[in-house]
């Protein structure tokens, strides 16, 4: 019952952005068609990352602003359970968007090889979502959501600089998405499946870490 309350309080924030953005992408895919399904799958991965992490960080910002954990700690609920619920909501959001993305790719009538490649790219994207989001969520619980956001932006900046350096050296051209796409396409399916499983495992392992971190810093 109490866990349901935590879900109920935050469900609108968790569900609305993924649902809205996915609906827009689906409408675009069906109305305009998809020229490069592998890139589209990569884009789905990036979108999944943004629309599942943003609500989680916004909710943490709200908790920080209101000292929400200190308030919840006065009620009959364990803070570790609150953290677990929040992690699980993000977890299911990522998996649900991943599954919806796969369904979308399957429904647009791609030939077998392209569907396989697109699905692999999306799976790798979901694996990275699971790993990075769990780390950022733990950082947000430990240091606050603003520092976690700074870490995220700094990492993105570094990746872009790295992309620029790599492109300047003539190893590969284009954006970070293009380079990631090239790397992803070189990854064989079994390894991609292992990475996806590893992503799930890392995310689930980070839940007790996040719970311990928050429990030691309620006030």
């Amino acid at each position, binding site marked *: 019952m109490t866990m349901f309350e935590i879900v109920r309080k935050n469900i609108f924030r968790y569900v609305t952005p993924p649902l809205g953005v996915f609906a827009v992408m689906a409408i675009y895919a069906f109305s305009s068609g998809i020229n490069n399904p592998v890139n589209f799958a990569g884009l789905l991965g990036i979108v999944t990352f943004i629309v599942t992490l943003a609500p989680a960080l916004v909710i943490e910002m709200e908790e920080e602003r209101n*000292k929400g954990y200190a308030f919840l700690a006065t009620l*009959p609920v364990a803070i570790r359970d609150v953290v677990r619920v929040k992690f699980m909501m993000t977890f299911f959001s990522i998996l649900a968007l991943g599954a919806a993305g796969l369904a979308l790719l399957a429904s647009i009538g791609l030939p077998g090889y392209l569907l396989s490649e697109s699905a692999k790219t999306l799976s790798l994207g979901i694996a990275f979502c699971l790993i990075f989001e769990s780390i950022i969520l733990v950082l947000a619980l430990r240091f606050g959501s603003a520092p976690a956001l700074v870490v995220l932006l700094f990492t993105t900046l570094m990746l872009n600089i790295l992309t620029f350096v790599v492109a300047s050296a003539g190893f590969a051209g284009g954006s970070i998405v293009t380079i990631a796409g090239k790397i992803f396409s070189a990854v064989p399916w079994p390894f991609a499946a292992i990475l996806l499983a590893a992503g799930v495992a890392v995310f689930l392992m980070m839940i007790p870490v996040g719970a311990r971190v928050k429990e030691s810093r309620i006030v």
Partner: protein
Amino acid sequence: MDNVLEARNLGKEYAGFALRDVSLTIPRGYILGLIGPNGSGKTTTIRMLMNMVKPSAGEIKIFGMDPAENEKAVKDRIGFVGDEQFYYENRSVAWTEEFVSRFFEKWDGELFNRLLGGFGIERRAAIRKLSKGMRVKLSIAIALSHDPELLILDEPTAGLDPVIRREILDRLMEFRGNEERSILISSHITDDIMRVADGVAFIVDGRVVLRDEKDSIAADWKRIHFRPGAAGGRLSAGLSCVKESAFGHSGITREYSKIREELAPGLASGDVRVENATLDDVLISFVKGE
């Protein structure tokens, strides 16, 4: 008499501050006042009891259970009012009630509304628009509306005007009702503790320096006023916080029963006068020492 709360040898280390060997026991139906100056460790102690801060040493049992392992079961029977009141600021009082009520096994919505009415709080009011006094009152309404067996209050009256303070203390005395309910109340406003508590624990520099019944403190702790030379001039050696006064000198003793006979001649001659020490006197005596 069974104990609703037992804390033994609690410890917590912070940079520049340490809480050491804090032990507290609250029997059922008892009101314990926790008195100490700012920064003495009252809030840290209460946060450890509420499992908001992990103790680095010691053991806590509330209703016979470890609150860290049985958090839901323990907190379901506790009403808590903190030194600051945290709520979701953009929400209303009504939303807050709906939210918190679902966490408790027993929630008395009628009592909550009655308390709100008595406190003059609108259900529709936005939390962010409530004054400090109103926020404390809302916190008390939440704390009382799930029929708790133990109230834990951390400086509930700090920063409030005397009218609101009295109103809140009256509510606490009403809550005590059938004397099956217990209260732990911390404050540095000793008048409030004097008004409601059965016993008092003084905490200074992270240690419990005195734990006694209020009546025993009144019997043993006295302020002695004496003229120079009274009782052969030995008096000031046994007193703390000795200072000059209009009478001559005054100081505080914690062992009045032991020196009463010695004072008898001075009392008869009018060279010595005795009055009850206030809880403020006792606290200052511990803070300032001999």
